């Protein structure tokens, strides 16, 4: 991104450089925009300029945080789950909140988080670095306040009901809300008793109504999930924040 920015400025500088004597144009590459606006020559004869040579690469480029991605599967096995979360703003009559950052994370089909894959003794991740943040991701809400992730249906671990974690930030990066998303029990029962990656682990040991997180707030944290084990599921959920 920074490179594009540089190129754009470079082109702007060239546009000005074309109307000043060549000797000045040479200095221009390291000069600032403010100094170039003061020059007023008008040779105007050279309409084409040699293309700059560049380092032969590879060289580093700015990369968005690896959290910023919609597919967070990273090789984890499980029933396909599309996660659609809409963010609305309580301070604006529940209108869609665009430009918000939405981080989500959840466990594997058998209840593990990518955070805990370090070797017991050494503390160094033994999995390939390219997959070290599986089932975690960040998206930015569109004009409808919507983000969409491609993932797998989470498993469960004791003593929690199945859930997805979510952390919402405004466009400036200020934390607005850390919350969790609950799953309909009937869907969980189907997945956990029939899907091959989940069957051995069985059904969740904690009901939504008995869960330490959801028991007092299920009404606004329960998502809607449709689909099937074979076709995959789609989760839709709305999170209201004060932004």
């Amino acid at each position, binding site marked *: 991104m920074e490179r594009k920015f540089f190129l754009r400025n470079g082109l702007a500088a060239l546009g000005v450089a074309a109307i000043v004597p060549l000797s000045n144009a040479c200095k221009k590459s390291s000069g600032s925009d403010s100094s170039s606006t003061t020059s007023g020559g008008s040779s105007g004869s050279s309409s084409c300029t040699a293309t700059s040579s560049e380092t032969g690469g*590879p060289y580093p480029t700015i990369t968005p945080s690896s959290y910023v991605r919609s597919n967070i599967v990273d090789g984890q096995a499980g029933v396909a789950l599309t996660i659609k979360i809409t963010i609305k703003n309580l301070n604006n009559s529940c209108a869609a909140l665009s430009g918000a950052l939405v981080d989500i994370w959840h466990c594997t089909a058998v209840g593990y988080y990518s*955070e805990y894959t370090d070797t017991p003794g050494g503390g160094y*991740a033994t*999995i390939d*670095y390219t997959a070290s943040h599986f089932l975690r991701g960040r998206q930015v809400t569109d004009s409808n306040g919507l983000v969409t992730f491609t993932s797998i249906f989470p498993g469960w671990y004791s003593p929690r009901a199945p859930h997805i974690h979510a952390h919402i*930030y405004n466009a400036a990066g200020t934390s607005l809300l*850390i919350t969790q998303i609950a799953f309909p029990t009937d869907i969980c029962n189907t997945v956990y008793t029939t899907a091959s990656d989940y069957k051995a682990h069985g059904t969740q040991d904690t009901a939504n109504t008995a869960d330490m997180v959801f028991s007092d707030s299920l009404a606004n944290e329960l998502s809607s999930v449709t689909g099937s084990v074979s076709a995959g599921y789609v989760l839709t959920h709305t999170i209201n924040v004060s932004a």
Partner: protein
Amino acid sequence: MNKGAIRLLYRKIIDADAKQLWEKYVFNDSYAEFLLQAQAYNQEKKYTSFADMLAQSPNAEKLHFLVSASIVGYLRQLNGVVPDIVSSTGKLFLPFKSYRFEIVSSDIRDKSKHQVAVNFMSEQLVWHDTIGDKLLVSVAGEKQAGAELLTETFAMQPFLGIYSLQKPV
């Protein structure tokens, strides 16, 4: 000769004095991510330093992992080769797949206090011998039956250690 298989660990420290572009990107992006993620462990905004957050909230240990997500994209750009560590012919040669990212120190009000370390754990090397101050190694898997074995020699250096040793059987 074969003294065993070793994994090297290179701890690359990156701070506000970073000179190379890659280091600057890691420095800037890890700090931006720290500002985002640290809010969860400092909800009343009582603390500014990472050390204070750790002291007050043991869960702040998670920030090492959480912030690391911001630099994985830069790790990919290394194409699986540990930076800085060169063989005696001056070439980068050390392959890696595993790493651990650490926040050494940071402060939400003062970027100059942000310091991180990327620990690169190399793939296994076969340690054949030691020549003067250099280790003679081959990258595991290089060997082909009956073929010449390609080797590397390198010197141990600051921030480079031997992480594990597997004795030959």
